[in-house]
């Protein structure tokens, strides 16, 4: 009996050891599988963007795009604001040059649906109030991620809203890289002085590729003499509202079709290493498919 009892203890111990052995293996395997995964900075920006937050800005304060940050800083004193890249294409194409419009303010309508399936494009079109040309994936591997419809306000120099219009954002992913196709029908049209970096023609549609340098600075940042000189350039923006000073490049392919404004946009830091030629080809894929 005693021997049987000993055997039972040994067996139990063996079972326990085997169990521990397997369980340790499983735990180690899962840890190894995920060890080199970490949340990127771009992911936080995506979250903040969806929430209408921007690098510490309050949800109520949305992205404001303006030229001449120094001047606007005083007009908008007491408010934190961000000069961003979202509506920059409207300035680039000169839409803001007409009338009293000094800039654009994009706002994401909270609790509004984000369309996760490309087949919902018609719902997004209905919400935006206009039809768009878009494709689900590009030959270079960028694939559809989501569609959002945002409201953009045209604002005067004092930050007063002059009028509003909807803007559709279609985001694409390739690995950890993101690009966006931003589509709108802005009521104003203007001219721009900046020469495009590249151009292309598809049928009747003229496409232009532009690169812009962005300097993101904290609130209260004092512009240097170099900043002030750079700000006079038409390919340079200073964006207020980040925690630290950061530099980035914004790349845009812009075209207009049937009164609708298209902006295929990638940031240097998160858009992958896309060249101007590649982005022009992507734009032409959209035109070809529609």
């Amino acid at each position, binding site marked *: 009996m005693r021997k049987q009892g000993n055997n039972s203890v040994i067996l139990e111990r063996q079972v326990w050891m085997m169990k521990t052995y397997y369980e340790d293996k499983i735990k180690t395997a899962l840890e190894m599988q995920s060890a080199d995964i970490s949340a990127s900075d771009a992911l936080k920006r995506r979250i903040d963007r969806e*929430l209408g937050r921007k690098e510490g800005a309050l949800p109520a304060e949305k992205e404001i795009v303006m030229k001449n940050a120094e001047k606007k800083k005083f007009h908008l004193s007491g408010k934190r604001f961000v000069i961003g890249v979202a509506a920059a294409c409207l300035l680039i194409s000169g839409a803001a040059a007409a009338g009293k419009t000094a800039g654009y303010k994009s706002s994401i309508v909270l609790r509004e649906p984000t369309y996760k399936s490309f087949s919902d494009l018609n719902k997004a079109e209905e919400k935006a109030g206009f039809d768009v040309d878009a494709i689900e994936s590009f030959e270079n591997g960028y694939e559809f*991620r989501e569609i959002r419809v945002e409201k953009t306000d045209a604002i005067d120099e004092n930050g007063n809203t002059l009028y509003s219009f909807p803007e559709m954002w279609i985001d694409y992913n390739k690995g950890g890289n993101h690009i966006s196709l931003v589509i709108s029908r802005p009521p104003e049209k203007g001219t721009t002085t900046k020469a495009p970096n590249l151009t292309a023609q598809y049928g009747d549609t003229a496409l232009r590729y532009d690169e812009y340098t962005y300097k993101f600075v904290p609130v209260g940042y004092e512009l240097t003499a170099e900043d002030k000189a750079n700000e006079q350039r038409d390919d340079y923006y200073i964006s207020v509202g980040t925690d630290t000073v950061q530099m980035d490049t914004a790349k845009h392919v812009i075209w207009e079709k049937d009164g609708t404004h298209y902006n295929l946009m990638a940031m240097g830091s998160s858009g992958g290493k896309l060249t101007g030629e590649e982005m022009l080809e992507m734009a032409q894929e959209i035109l070809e498919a529609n």
Partner: protein
Amino acid sequence: MKDEILVRQLKEGHDEAFDLLYEKYKNLAIRTAYLITGNLPDSEDVVQETFVKVYLHITELKNDSGFKPWMMQILVRTAWRTGKRNGREIPDDDTVSRMENTASISPLGQMIKREEAEMISNAVRSLPVKHRTVVVLYYYNELPVTEIAKLLGCREGTVKSRLHTARKALKGALSGKDIHGEGSAEKALGLM
């Protein structure tokens, strides 16, 4: 800072508290999402959706000290829905290639360990999503069965049963029985 304090601050409208909670849990969240969905783009979508919901619905969290299980519950459900939406019950090969990348610099012993880990990972990846989730929460997140049951909204018995069947499949993988090829875990579970 304690979750309880951060949750209270966020409920009062202090946005910085959200940033601190995100910083604290971002890697746990993305790694858990990755282990459930099996690929990085989906994991990022899951974490994005989870934290957007956290921000928008924080006032609905009744127990301020229960932030982590509440966030994990949102994350798991979002991951399940994302997998279903993208038709990816069985994730793609991203995980394997990721492991291969890290294995290239390892010595022999480490390589063997990695190969073994890869076998287990393959088996975990081929488990049905609900079994896979229980395995991830139990072994990776080290949550007790009672907490997993609460988080998934099911009975403890269901969690234990899923763990048992999953273990059987994983042991099969470690013993070298049918360790390669898709569906090995389903076979071990008698689902194929």
